[in-house]
Every structure is written in structure tokens, then in C-alpha cells.
């Protein structure tokens, strides 16, 4: 499923593609610099915003700890492009920030009157939106370290600060690397936000070459380069993590031993990401919705919401069905083939949406030229196919960890009692992994609901979802009108996220 579009893309490239790279050196150079600069800022910001709150929330017991812990995940409910559109407007000359300064703090208002649509600001905004990946990964890793290593470090003379840098961080390197990998993939995949900020990255160049300039060979060349970069990052993460996967000895949970003097720190550390990563854009969007309440058409809203929900539900259901099947085979037979299959499922997330979309267009063109007469481009099935490939890795993690928690002896006992494969699947595997299946479905649902580049490339004619409509209006400088669609996405995603948290904590 995953290799077919990629092979098509590679087969479409030829010697001309490499000549194109040579001819358009400057374009590639600018895109590379911008992409890596944006990547570095975003990674740095997400590390700062995710790492320290994760540590302080893990080791401290304080009032509203559970609520703050949940709120820290909420920026996941706001797609990066909506965050960028909102902050673009908030910081603009006519936006609430500068208007407030002109009215109340005139002397300094001129200092803040500047262009905020810069790569640095975009990096910070993407960091605000993507830090939950770092937070989630580190929360799990820090909790797993347990109190033994922390106590040991203290008894060997380290204070909390030294313990954090000498023990906690080195032991969490695999988790931090995985989080950085996810953040990197999201940045490389990003289209809406970078386009709105007018920054040329690989993704925007693919769109521009393919659609605006009708320059197929440049688009394919950029897609191949992007693919190579992704491959390098993926390999680095895979090999480094398999080398540094530490086996912790059975360990007790971290006890909350921090004294009350430091208890303000968890609030301080979590205040910034929660307020700036969720509440400010949300409040801005709500104000816009209230201001423009008369201009929204109910029929349009219902139709786009239904389209988004249908696409998300269908893709997530297919993903879950495929995963149940693949992971069941892997669990039962543990052959090298099943191992490769499960590894391949995690590759999809590494493919930037633009590359995947382009590959599938190339694939269907090849198919159309050589095998069948009907064009798949613009069909609902091609869109679902792409979404399934891209997000299958998202569903894999919760389901795999749920399966791994069941001792192998459970299946062996059931087999011993006479259950064959179908019986095992029906009476043991599915009932025991109900929560894992549900979490996998909901996580995929959120990601598909927010997805933009694939849907933009592959959506059927005259078909819009909440995300494409938000994008369409925002790039046409109508952010206020797009806000109702943004609010619907955030509302649906927040509710789904709440359910995921509930299922996972069960």
C-alpha cells in the first residue's frame, strides 16, 4: 500500500529530474535553508515548551494537576495552519494586539508595529502547536524512569537540577528523539501555515511547481529530495533509538516529594504553552465567530462538517481494521515478514502529505496510461487511500502498546482450550484490546480531521471539508469568515481528544 505510490514517484523521475535540480540550484537552496531553519526553531520551541512542564508535572503533586495535565495536550486540537492564521491576524496592524497597544500603551506601540509574518514567528507558532508531541512522549518516559534512579542520583550527591540533566534526560533520549521526529515530520508536512506566512519550503514549492507553474519535473524532483531527507531522519531515529533503548529494571512510581517552595514552577511552566497554544487562538476565533455570526450559512456548515466527519470516520475505520489484522498476525506468528509489515505501517507518517498526494496522482496517471481507462484523480477512494497510508502509524502506537500489555500466555491458554484464529480474534484479541482499538480510532480521527495538504491535492471536484474551507478563506485574507470552520474543527478535535484521554487513562 505504501510502496506503490512511492515507486510510482521514483519511476516518474528520470535523468531530467536531476538536471532540473542542477538548473534550479537557487530554488532548492532557498527551500532547503528555509525548511531547516524553520525545523530548528520549531524543534527548539517545542522542546522548551514540552520538556520542562512534563518534568515538573511528573514529579510534583499540586492543585489542578490532572486538569493542567489534560490542558497541556489541547493544542493538538488546533491544526497548525489555524494557529498560524489566528496569530497572523492577532499580531497584524489591525489585530487586537497592536490595536490594544495603540490605545493603551502608545509610547511602545511603534516598537511593536512590524511585520510578524516571518519565519522566526512561524517557528514559534508551530512550536506552540506541536509541543504536545514532546510533552506526551516525555511524560510517559519520565514516569517510567520511576523513583529508584532519582533516589539513587540524590543519594550519590546530585540535587534535582543535576539529576534532571545527568539522569532523566539521558534516560529519556529515545523518547525525546521520537518526539523530535514527529515534530520534524509535521513541519516537513506543513503547507497551510507556511503558505500563509509566504515562506518557501519544500512543500510550498511542490504545490507551486505542480499547480501554479504546471512544472511536473520540478515538483517530482523536490518531492524526491524531500523524501530523501525524510528517509535520512527516519533512519537516524530508528537506528539511534534501537541502540539506546534502555531496559529499566522493575521500578516504583515516582512519589511526589518536591517541597512547597518550588510548587509555583509547574504553574509557571505550563501557563505559557496552555494560554498561548490553546486559549488565545481559541478566544480570538470565538470573537470572530460572534462578530460574523450573520454571514455563516447553515447548509454550508452542515455539509462541510458532515464531509469532514465522514472522511475521518471512514479512514479511521479502515486504518483500525487493517491494524487489527496486521498486528494480530504479528502477535500470533512473529515471523520476519509480519515484522516488516508492521514496520512499514510506521513509515506512512514519515511521508509528507504533499509528497504522498503527488505520488498518488503520478500513480493514477501511470495506471490510467497503461492499465485502466478510468482516472482515479479526484475520486473519493484515492483520497481515503492516501489518508489511510499517512495515518496508519498514528493508530498503530496505542493499539500496539495495548496488545503488548497482554501476556502471550493468555493466547496460549485460549489455544489450549481449543480456540483457533477466528475464535482468538473474536473472544480474546478484540475484547481485551477494546480500549486500544477505540483510542487508535479516535487519534486517527483527530489527525484526519485536521489534515490539509493531502485533502487539498486529492479532494474530489466541488468537495470541501472544514479544513480545506478554512484554508481557502484564510489565504484569500478572510480569516474572520474562516473562523467558524476553525471553531468546528477545534470543537470536534477537543471532544475527541477528551475521549482519547479518558480511554487511555482507563
Amino acid at each position, binding site marked *: 500500500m505504501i510502496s506503490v505510490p512511492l515507486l510510482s514517484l521514483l519511476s516518474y523521475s528520470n535523468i531530467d529530474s536531476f538536471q532540473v535540480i542542477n538548473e534550479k540550484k537557487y530554488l532548492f537552496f532557498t527551500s532547503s535553508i528555509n525548511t531547516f531553519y524553520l525545523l530548528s526553531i520549531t524543534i527548539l520551541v517545542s522542546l522548551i515548551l514540552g520538556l520542562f512542564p512534563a518534568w515538573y508535572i511528573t514529579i510534583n503533586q499540586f492543585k489542578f494537576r490532572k486538569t493542567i495535565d489534560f490542558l497541556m495536550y489541547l493544542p493538538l486540537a488546533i491544526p497548525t495552519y489555524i494557529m498560524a492564521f489566528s496569530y497572523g491576524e492577532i499580531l497584524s496592524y489591525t489585530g487586537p494586539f497592536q490595536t490594544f497597544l495603540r490605545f493603551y500603551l502608545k509610547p511602545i506601540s511603534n516598537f511593536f508595529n512590524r511585520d510578524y509574518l516571518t519565519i522566526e514567528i512561524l517557528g514559534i507558532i508551530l512550536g506552540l502547536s506541536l509541543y504536545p508531541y514532546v510533552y506526551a512522549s516525555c511524560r510517559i518516559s519520565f514516569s517510567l524512569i520511576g523513583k*529508584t*534512579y532519582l*533516589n*539513587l*542520583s*540524590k*543519594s*550519590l*550527591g*546530585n*540535587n534535582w537540577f*543535576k539529576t534532571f540533566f*545527568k*539522569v532523566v534526560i*539521558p*534516560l529519556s*533520549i529515545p523518547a525525546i528523539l521520537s518526539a523530535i521526529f514527529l515534530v520534524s515530520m509535521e513541519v516537513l508536512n506543513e503547507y497551510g501555515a507556511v503558505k500563509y506566512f509566504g515562506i518557501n519550503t519544500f512543500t510550498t514549492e511542490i504545490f507551486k511547481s505542480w499547480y501554479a507553474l504546471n512544472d511536473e519535473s520540478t515538483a517530482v524532483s523536490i518531492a524526491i529530495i524531500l523524501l530523501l531527507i525524510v528517509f535520512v531522519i527516519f533512519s537516524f531515529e530508528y537506528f539511534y533509538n534501537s541502540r*539506546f533503548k*534502555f*531496559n*529499566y*529494571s*522493575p*521500578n516504583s512510581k515516582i512519589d511526589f*516529594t518536591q517541597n512547597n517552595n518550588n510548587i509555583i514552577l509547574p504553574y509557571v511552566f505550563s501557563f505559557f504553552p496552555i494560554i498561548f497554544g490553546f486559549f488565545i487562538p481559541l478566544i480570538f476565533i470565538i470573537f470572530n465567530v460572534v462578530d460574523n455570526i450573520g454571514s455563516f450559512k447553515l447548509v454550508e456548515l452542515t455539509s462541510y462538517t458532515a464531509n469532514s466527519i465522514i472522511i475521518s470516520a471512514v479512514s479511521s475505520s479502515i486504518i483500525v481494521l487493517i491494524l487489527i489484522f496486521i498486528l494480530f498476525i504479528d502477535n500470533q506468528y512473529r515471523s520476519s515478514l509480519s515484522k516488516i509489515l508492521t514496520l512499514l505501517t510506521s513509515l506512512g507518517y514519515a511521508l509528507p502529505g504533499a509528497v504522498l498526494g503527488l505520488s498518488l496522482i503520478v500513480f493514477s496517471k501511470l495506471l490510467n496510461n497503461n492499465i485502466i481507462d478510468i482516472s482515479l484523480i479526484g475520486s473519493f477512494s484515492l483520497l481515503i487511500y492516501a489518508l489511510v497510508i499517512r495515518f496508519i502509524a498514528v493508530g498503530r502506537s496505542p493499539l500496539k502498546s495495548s496488545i503488548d500489555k497482554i501476556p502471550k500466555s493468555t493466547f496460549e491458554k485460549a489455544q489450549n482450550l481449543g480456540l483457533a484464529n477466528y475464535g482468538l480474534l473474536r473472544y480474546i484479541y478484540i475484547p481485551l484490546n477494546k480500549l486500544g482499538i477505540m483510542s487508535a480510532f479516535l487519534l486517527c480521527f483527530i489527525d484526519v480531521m485536521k489534515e490539509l495538504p493531502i485533502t487539498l491535492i486529492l479532494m474530489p471536484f466541488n468537495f470541501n471539508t472544514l479544513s480545506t474551507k478554512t484554508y481557502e478563506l484564510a489565504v484569500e485574507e478572510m480569516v474572520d469568515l474562516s473562523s467558524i470552520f476553525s471553531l468546528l474543527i477545534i470543537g470536534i478535535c477537543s471532544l475527541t481528544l477528551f475521549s482519547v484521554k479518558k480511554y487511555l487513562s482507563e
Partner: protein
Amino acid sequence: MYFFVNNIKKSYNSNSPVLKNLSFSMRKGEILSFVGESGSGKTTFLRSVSGLEKLDKGLISLNGTVLNSENIFVKPQRRNIAYVFQDFPLFPHLTVFNNLIFNLDPAFKKNIDDLVDVTGLKTLLNRYPHQLSGGERQRVCIVRAIVREPELLLLDEPFSNLDKKIKKSIIDYVESILEHKKITTILVTHDINNILNISDKILVFKGGVLQQYDSPQKMYCHPSNCYCAELLGDLNELNFQGKKHYIRPEHIKIVERSEYELNIIKSLFQGKDYKVKATHNHNEFHFYSKYFYEPKTTLHFDFNPKNLIFFNKKCESYFT
């Protein structure tokens, strides 16, 4: 006194304190075995001494410095106390050598070569913890603690979860190192038989209360209550001059005729002798013999009254 614990109290919930008014003291270089059942508060005591737990009440002082009192609490990293944890944790991201020098003052690096030689760790220095066996991990943990010449060494169940052969060698290592370095040590265990040889003093602890604090010999011959007596070995109950007394199995002599009669149940082969299980006045009775006795045989026994142990009513169980 070098190490001094006075009237300490610690509870996790107000109804049942884990440590109740515990007081004792140690001289420099002494090895104390802190004996108690699982869940009796042994680890809580060690954690309190090391500073990982704060006391509710009482005082702990070491080498003239108060570590914990009503107004003073010295942080664990500022106490010169080494703590070898029960599950022998080694930092999994560091090699054996890096584990040994973790946060080690350069002044103590000179101790490493010597200790590594004594404990046979020389060939393992570049290995990671997951490449070590249980016994090797244990040795690394002990060396890591000792290398920094602590004022007090705390060992939490250092000999549990080891097979007999490794256990013996580890005990030998610990004994030789502690003797060599003269480190004041508190060793916590639930199995007293492992540490009888290496302890200068034994502290028996039950239900948060100190039961007895004495030398191993004194505790064996003059236990303070029935609980301490049974902890150090089998005890037989018999009636002497109209009062209930106790006697150790090795003080029983089989004779041809006496007023004390035994009915044999079973003779258990132990290699150098048999441990014979019998009944006397409907109570279970044990003694050691070179001979095998058939079940249901009737025998007579005698003893030296000096070896009898007597407990008054207050001491027939344990102190609460």
C-alpha cells in the same frame, strides 16, 4: 556515639506509624544488622537515615552532625551516606566504569583500582548494566557506594534474590571490604541467617518497635522475647519446675532414661547429621542426631538447666 538515633517516629498515615520511638546508637566501624519481616519498616528507616524521607519526630545524628531533628533537615545529597538500594539499580545508559565514577569527587578516584581488583570487576568495566549478571550488578552497586568513603553505608537486603553460591561469594566480598575499609554499616535484611557472621550487633524490629539490640551471641543465648529467640533458630517448649521454658535443639541430649519423653515423627537427612522432628507433651520438638530414628519410636532426653530460656509473660510474644 558515632551514629545516634533518638526517639524517631515516622508514619504515612496517622493511625499506624511505621517507626515508633526508635532509639539506638552505634560506634564507628560497627556493622549493624537491622532485622525485620517484610513490611516492618526497615526500608523506611534506611530512607529516613539517608534523607529520602523526613521524620515526623526524633533526631538522627552522624559523626557529631545532626542530620534530622525538629528544626534541621540535611538534604540527601549533602549527607555523606551511601545507600545500596534493594533492587541494585545501575544507570542503564552508563557503563560499569561510568556508573562507578558517577558524581564522584576526584579525590576518591584513587580508591577505584583497589576495589575493582578485590571485587573482580576489572574485566567488566566497559560493559553496560544489561550485560551483567545479578551478582555482578550487586558488586558494582556495593563498590559504587564504598568508593566514596561514606561516613555511613546503608545496605538494603543486599543478599536477597541471589542463588546460594553467589550469595556466599557476595557476603565474603562485603565482609572483606567492610573489614578492610572500617566503614560503619547498617545492613537491612529479613533473613538473619545470612548476616550472623558479619554483624557486630543485631537490631530486631517488629511492628515499628525495637525488640532487641545486642550482639549476635547474646541475642542467641539471651533473647529478649520469644519472637527474637525464634528468629535466630528453632526453639523447643518444655515444662521445667512447673514453668514454661524453652531450649535450643542443639542443647538436647538423648539418654536412656529420664522424665522427659519424645515420640519421633520424622528424621530429616541434612548431610552431616539428621534433624529429628518429634513431639513432646503434644508440642512439636526438634533436635539434631547422628542417627536415624524410625517414626513412632519413643526416646528420652535430658538437658543442662543452664541452657534453658525463660520468658516472663510480657516476653512470650513480641513488644508492641
